[in-house]
């Protein structure tokens, strides 16, 4: 483990933080040598998820780190909040379904943009979304 491998953590409590999350994830994606298209996909997914954390969770945090598995480099971002949680996950993952004023693409769209997507949520406890993007 080198210093570059230690995860970065950011608090997400304002719109400016969403921009900071994009920059942090982009730096990590460049360090992992993801292609420009894959960088853009990961940063876009991170932007959606950071906004979800802010809007639905009230506030929260993200942990971003570089990974290596079977000789491939990747980036993992873990978004967590202590908000109300998602009562109906299946519904929330449906394209076009929205609980607010958005387009309902945040979760379902982000999932399409990454290689691994995991969501852990419980009403009253909060939500944690983990995404990973690997080099090809």
């Amino acid at each position, binding site marked *: 483990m080198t210093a570059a491998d230690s995860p970065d953590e950011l608090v997400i409590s304002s*719109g400016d933080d*969403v*921009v900071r999350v994009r920059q942090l994830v982009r730096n990590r994606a460049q360090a992992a040598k993801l292609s420009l*298209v894959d960088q*853009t996909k990961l*940063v*876009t997914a991170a932007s959606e998820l950071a906004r979800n954390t802010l809007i639905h969770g009230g506030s929260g945090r993200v942990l971003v780190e570089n990974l290596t598995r079977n000789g491939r480099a990747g980036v993992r971002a873990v978004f967590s909040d202590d908000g109300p949680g998602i009562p109906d996950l299946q519904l929330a993952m449906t394209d076009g379904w929205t609980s607010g004023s958005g*387009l309902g693409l945040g979760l379902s769209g982000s999932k*399409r*943009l990454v290689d691994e997507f995991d969501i852990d949520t419980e009403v009253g406890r909060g939500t944690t979304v983990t995404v990973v993007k690997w080099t090809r």
Partner: protein
Amino acid sequence: MDRVPLLSLGDALLVSIQVDLDDETVLALQEDLAERIVSSGARGVVIDISGVEIVDSFIGRMFGSIAALSRVLDAETVVVGMRPAVAITLVELGLSLNGVRTALNVERGLTILRKLTAERHPRDAEDDDVAFDDHGGDGGEVMAAQPRA
């Protein structure tokens, strides 16, 4: 929060986005643009996003809102200069930008606006068919939608 500058280009307004857009900047841009369309009587809006590295669903929705808003105020909108990686990501995200006209660069965007305005205001076009010409000479440099290294 950054404010996106609005430039007049003949009968059109040129919005060149060069900052990483936070949500407040996006909302402020919509308001500024509505005010400027009314105060300047602009017939078209060109939004140049060649400097934009990501377009997420919020920013994408803003393009649709601006297009709808300017139409209500008698102006047409064209979004130009989208980077290839952004286009690929938008489609995969599920955003099709319905109702938003796009063009490869500012020059083509202005050509589209000129045609649309001529259709909507045939008499004006006869009187002044150089409405959208860039009087600053060859605007090719500003218009290039080159991906940055």
